């Protein structure tokens, strides 16, 4: 039997396959398809302090090998989560990781403090990379000083595993990674979506109510993979890679380029059982290649 388990900072994952925030709900919608307890971790949908309606419809456009979304962090706020959702999901047999969003540093802090109270949430993913909100979001993730400021501030109030999620919409991803590592991140996750746009030539109108939105799916994989590889070489903390992973081979490519674990995003929409298949596929790959421990594959790209 091959060993798929991997430790990311203080998190012991039973396997390196997690589901990405905003693409797996709170996991409940998937229980008809498989037991979410089989996953390495679940990154639940983005939380904010207060209820957010998100952006107006339409919020989605299909693109070549991908999609744009402009959801804009729709959620009912942290209180609603704690009262109505947390009790139902806290006993999943896997790690529940909260995706934390604010428009100001203060909001990030308050939200983190509330999540810190929740015993069954062993880690947060600090989202400083959402391209679909007017305030905060990606603005924090595209400049080093603001990324440092928010990471620092959250670090002070949080002592469980702090994952910072980077935006790919930057000139130098390694520099951003170093900045948040220096500011106290335990782990880095990347990439969030790329800022993109789609138009209907016939109507001359944008396809999204917000004109621009976040691009995800296999189309972004080559860029995401490059960024993961650059970040892996730059920092010492572990990396949670993602961006267009559709099958086990994609997942292994991310692991080889330096991801200790990976997240499956958009692929969940097309095949809700895909993360289960990816876990099996990694296992088969390891057996076929005589790899006993998945750790051996992390960053094992050969020149």
């Amino acid at each position, binding site marked *: 039997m091959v060993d798929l388990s991997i430790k990311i900072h203080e998190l012991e994952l039973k396997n390196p396959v997690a589901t990405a925030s905003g693409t797996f709900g709170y996991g409940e919608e998937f229980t008809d398809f498989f037991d979410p307890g089989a996953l390495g971790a679940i990154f639940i949908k983005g939380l904010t302090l207060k209820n957010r309606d998100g952006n107006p419809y339409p919020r989605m456009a299909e693109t070549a090998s991908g999609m744009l979304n402009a959801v804009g962090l729709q959620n009912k706020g942290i209180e609603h989560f704690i009262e109505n959702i947390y009790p139902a999901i806290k006993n999943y047999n896997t790690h529940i990781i909260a995706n934390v969003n604010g428009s100001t540093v203060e909001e990030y802090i308050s939200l983190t403090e509330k999540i810190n109270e929740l015993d069954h949430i062993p880690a947060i993913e600090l989202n400083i990379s959402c391209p679909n909100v007017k305030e905060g979001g990606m603005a924090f993730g595209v400049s080093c000083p603001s990324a440092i400021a928010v990471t620092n501030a959250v670090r002070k109030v949080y002592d469980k595993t702090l994952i910072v999620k980077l935006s790919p919409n930057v000139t130098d991803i390694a520099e951003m990674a170093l900045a948040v590592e220096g500011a106290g991140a335990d782990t880095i996750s990347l990439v969030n979506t790329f800022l993109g746009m789609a138009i209907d030539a016939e109507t001359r109108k944008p396809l999204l109510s917000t004109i621009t939105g976040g691009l995800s799916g296999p189309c972004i994989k080559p860029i995401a993979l490059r960024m993961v590889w650059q970040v892996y070489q730059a920092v010492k903390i572990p990396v949670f890679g993602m961006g267009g992973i559709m099958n086990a081979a994609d997942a292994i490519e991310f692991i080889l380029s330096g991801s200790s674990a990976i997240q499956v995003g*958009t692929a969940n929409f097309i095949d809700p059982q895909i993360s289960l298949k990816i876990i099996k596929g990694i296992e088969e790959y390891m057996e076929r290649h005589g790899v006993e421990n998945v750790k051996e594959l992390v960053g094992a790209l050969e020149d």
Partner: protein
Amino acid sequence: MKRIEDLSVKNISWLNSNSYVLELSGTKAIPDILPGNFAEIRVDHHPGVFLRRPFSYLDVDEKNNSISFFVKVVGKGSRKLGTLEKGELVNVIHPLGNAFSIPDNKKVLITGGGSGIAPFIMLGRELKSRGNEITIITGGRSSEDILFSEEFKAYGEVLCTTEDGSLGEKGILTEHPIFTKDNFDFDLIYTCGPEGMMKAVAKIARDKGIACEASLEHLMACGFGVCLCCIQETTEGNKCVCTEGPVFNTNDLKW
């Protein structure tokens, strides 16, 4: 409970130049399906199609473990599905969404335009079995678009409008004289079709104080409530068309 499964193409029958019925069958018993529910169908082997495509059930044949869809060709995915061969496998997530409400022994009006007639075969049968008095009105560009009239006749009175006047009343659906008749005294109106048409029907319903249910065809990425792309503004905030719809009481919509 929703499920994901491969079904095989049992038959594709073209009804006119741009729409067909796709019949899929499986080996397991089909799940319980209610009028208004839909399925997310994966379109394989087309470079331009990335996401699944949502389609309402046209009908369910429990004896043969088969389900059917009425598909109007509007783009890449709907065109591709129509080229499948008998026996090819199609991956389906279903059943999804909520259902139309079914009263007992009432007077109901069904209004459908374009591919919006799809859910009304199942709805009509259910309504009839519960003793309702049914009027069905369908609208289209020309006589070619007026489909399933025979099936609908089994449920009640069937009316139609065509924009070119080639069948039924000339004009758009809501220009049909029935809407201005004095005895327009339905208890419930159902509508599905182009948004403009549904809004016009909803307005008539509201003006006359009649309850109205519309089945919305929003863009969807997942179809089962996780992407939050398919939302509709309602009086109670944004709702997911795929899980809290596709059927809405039009009074709850900000139309």
